[in-house]
């Protein structure tokens, strides 16, 4: 396996944590996304919005090479991270995912204890520290995901034995424990009640101080409330490929969209 560690010394001149340039993504012969170019600013929340099937998840998965796991999926173009194209042949996808973490639509804690859920990432990443240091790391990750106070007394409890909102925050904590730079979230609140949803949104604002966040959502209010920048995708009616209609600061997209399709979409007239 060719290994190329991502250079930790890289000092970012770019204001972008991640930048997508001319990306096309295929599932076998079907081009699901075309001509995609946009940047995700550091320590900001970037929301990907658009109707279902327009390729938001596909683009999100291309940002940490999770699409590699789908047979037949292929990405063309560049995804730049720390000055390197993640799709260069000598980049190691496993290594990429250690720096660019992911939280999924459906909370998917491992059928292990809460503690072991958090410890899993560091352990597979060659954790060498002591038990006390791991305890500390687990606490830090759980505090980071604002879950510590709720579960600190039963860290031995199964990760599946807590509520759906808590499970999703456990998954966020688990992603934090490997100390990524970027966190990708694919509709993390779509299965949650409004209160849990608000908790996660507040959490995202906290996390923004230390991480760059990219979130897919089909919830317009959520994008408007909880993001700094917004990218709006729409499917090309001719070839059914998703493409970017407009992207910019969330305020601008929601208050004075340049494209009339954006306006129609955010005002709920189609989608």
């Amino acid at each position, binding site marked *: 396996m060719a290994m190329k560690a991502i250079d930790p010394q890289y000092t970012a001149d770019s204001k972008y944590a991640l930048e997508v340039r001319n990306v096309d993504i295929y599932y076998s012969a079907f081009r699901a996304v075309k001509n995609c170019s946009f940047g995700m600013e550091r320590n900001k929340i970037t929301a990907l919005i658009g109707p279902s099937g327009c390729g938001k998840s596909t683009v999100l998965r291309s940002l940490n090479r999770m699409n590699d796991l789908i047979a037949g999926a292929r990405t063309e173009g560049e995804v730049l991270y720390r000055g390197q194209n993640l799709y260069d042949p000598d980049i190691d996808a496993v290594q990429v995912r250690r720096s660019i973490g992911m939280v*999924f639509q459906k909370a998917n804690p491992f059928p292990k204890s809460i503690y072991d859920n958090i410890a899993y990432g560091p352990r597979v990443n060659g954790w060498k520290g002591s038990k006390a240091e791991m305890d500390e790391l687990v606490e830090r990750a759980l505090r980071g995901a604002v879950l510590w106070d709720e579960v600190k007394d039963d860290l031995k409890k199964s990760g599946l034995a807590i509520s759906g909102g808590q499970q999703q925050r456990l998954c966020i904590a688990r992603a934090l424990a490997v100390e990524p730079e970027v966190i990708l979230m694919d509709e993390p609140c779509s299965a949650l009640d409004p209160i849990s949803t608000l908790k996660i949104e507040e959490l995202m604002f906290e996390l923004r101080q230390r991480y760059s966040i990219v979130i897919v959502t089909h919830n317009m209010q959520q994008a408007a409330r909880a993001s700094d920048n917004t990218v709006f995708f729409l499917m090309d009616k001719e070839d059914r490929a998703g493409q970017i209609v407009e992207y910019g600061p969330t305020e601008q997209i929601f208050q004075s969209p340049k494209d009339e399709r954006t306006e129609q979409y955010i005002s709920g007239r189609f989608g």
Partner: protein
Amino acid sequence: MADQIRVNSDPRAALAGASVKQIDLRKRPRIGETIIQTILYACGFISIFTTIGIVYVLGQESLRFFASDEVSLVEFFTNTVWQPVIGEFGILPLVNSTMMVTIIALLVAIPLGLAMAIYMAEYASERVRAFLKPVIELLAGIPTVVYGFFALTFVTPWLREIFGRDVVQIYNVMSAGLVVGILITPIIATLSEDALSAVPSGLRQASLGLGATKWETAIRVVVPAAFSGIVAASIVAMSRAIGETMVVALAAGASPQFTFNPFLPAETMTGHIARISGGDLSYQTIDYNSIFAIGLVLFFMTLTLNIVSRMIVRRFREVYE
């Protein structure tokens, strides 16, 4: 059914909101349905009656065996000599060789079967898997007598070549155990593959998304999540090994002796039953009754294993809810 619904097509009636349709909702007899139900019900009970019948026959003949003066229950379970000719009826040598064959078989089959299962569930492409699974299932369909000959004419000479002819006897437990292991590998492979494939793909994605490799994901997430299913598969394979007759009858020999040396001949419970019932034993002799007692012990051993595996599978369900 359509003709039972009568629609009043007069639009004025519809507008007036009067009852426009008359639908026949009365109960009607469905004879075919009842007959089918009865037949299926009966089929379900046949298996229960068969089991009861087997236990009855085994129990009755065993009772005769233990009722005779020649053997007591204690002696049956503690004596290490099985020599019906001289009136020694200790089941331990037979149980011991059965367990030895089973353990050797499991030592072969669990790693091999699990490796196959992991390969099929986690690594193989859809096409390779679609080809491999039927092939492995086909292996399970080879008559066991073929496996027996394979043990005797291929594995035994090979063992004797490696360890020496004076160490490895022509008939030996090791050869039988290895081949029974090959025979039960498909069971472990296919059942474990089912268990691994049933693990939600979200768990794999979570693990890979944290920067784990495929192998780490398979070993640290998928296999533990499917653990109970794998244990259940191993137990099914274990009962199969305990009950396997042809291979041991052909390859392990016909001398019930109490030994832990796998290179010596020995006779398992099933092998002994096959040999004795194949011979010209007269009914109602103590020898004849003795094989029913062995059969009863065998029955309870596999029954226990089945119960244990059900308990494990049930616990597995609880964990996932």
